[in-house]
């Protein structure tokens, strides 16, 4: 479980709806405070597309938006629930408030 894994981050921001590459990185910056490098971002997108977890929508000029596929939604939900379980246990043991 890696919360900062680039593929997880891309899936997370795509959960809100289809985005193109630049907008995906802007959303990741808003979420984590840092942009992914172009090599990391498009490496992650290529992997997700090859695995069938995201799919391309018809292009708008140079920008082609992508969206989560049903399989991607399933994998993301499983991944986030796993992270949430780990986070809940860790926070409980630390005596910290999950909020």
């Amino acid at each position, binding site marked *: 479980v890696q919360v900062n894994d680039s*593929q997880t981050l891309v*899936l997370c921001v795509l959960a809100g709806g289809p985005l193109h590459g630049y907008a995906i990185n802007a959303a990741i910056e808003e979420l984590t405070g840092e942009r992914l490098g*172009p090599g990391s971002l498009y*490496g992650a997108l*290529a992997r997700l597309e090859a695995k069938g977890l995201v799919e391309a929508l018809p292009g708008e000029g*140079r*920008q082609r938006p992508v969206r989560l596929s049903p399989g991607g939604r399933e*994998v993301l939900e499983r991944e986030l629930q796993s992270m949430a379980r780990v986070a809940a246990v860790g926070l409980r043991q630390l005596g910290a408030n999950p909020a």
Partner: protein
Amino acid sequence: VSVVRVLVGLYPAPFRERWGPQIEAEAEATGRRSWVNLAMGVVDAWLHPAIWPVRSRSQQHRWVGQVGVALGIAGWFVVYLEAELDDRASAAGFRAGLVNGFALLLALGLFLAAPRPRMTWEATVTMLRCSARLLMGPATVGAGVVAAVSCTGLSETSPSWLKLLVLGCWWTSLGWASVQACRILPGLDAQMVAEPTPARLRVGLGCLAAALSAAGTMILGSGVTGSGWDLLSTVGGVALIGLACLLASMVHSLRGGWIGLNC
């Protein structure tokens, strides 16, 4: 021509066609801070042909086979270089056994994983022509070195600069030939090449991974446990094990075993 455009141009063609304009726009917006990440992305893309956008499974198998062959040839180059440069007496017998066993397994892997020209007159002639054109340069340099050594009688007493020059030319010709050999099949039209079947490709890549990991382990072992720590053997062994891991990850991705987010 900007640095970003050059780096984007280094991506594999299918990857560049699908993502190139977006990568370029993103990298231009980020500026020079993106250059290192972009260069790492190029290497990552070349080493993982299973993520290249494909029109069909067979096209993916062809690319995976070609990259597997390139990695196998790179491994052969490292083993050959290691065997030639390791002048420790203790390594002599070990060297001969290693090179013979390794070459056999490697040849089997290359035979199985490589896409093959279709059995037509046109495909055969085109491949021979392409091979001759690409290998002409390194073959000329190599033949020149052999001719120079046999004519001038290069020996232990020859000046060291001359020995270094001859050795440099020899290794350049071998390295150049390795690179050119990897370019032969991608240079052919897709209709002239038959991609390997998935089973053949998996077995071929498995043989290549086994050959490189065995050679890497033995070379690394001889480098750290012999008469003293040897830098060349350690670097060569680690490089071979790294190449073997890449080949193993290609087999893994072909099996569809990478649906999780950590690969």
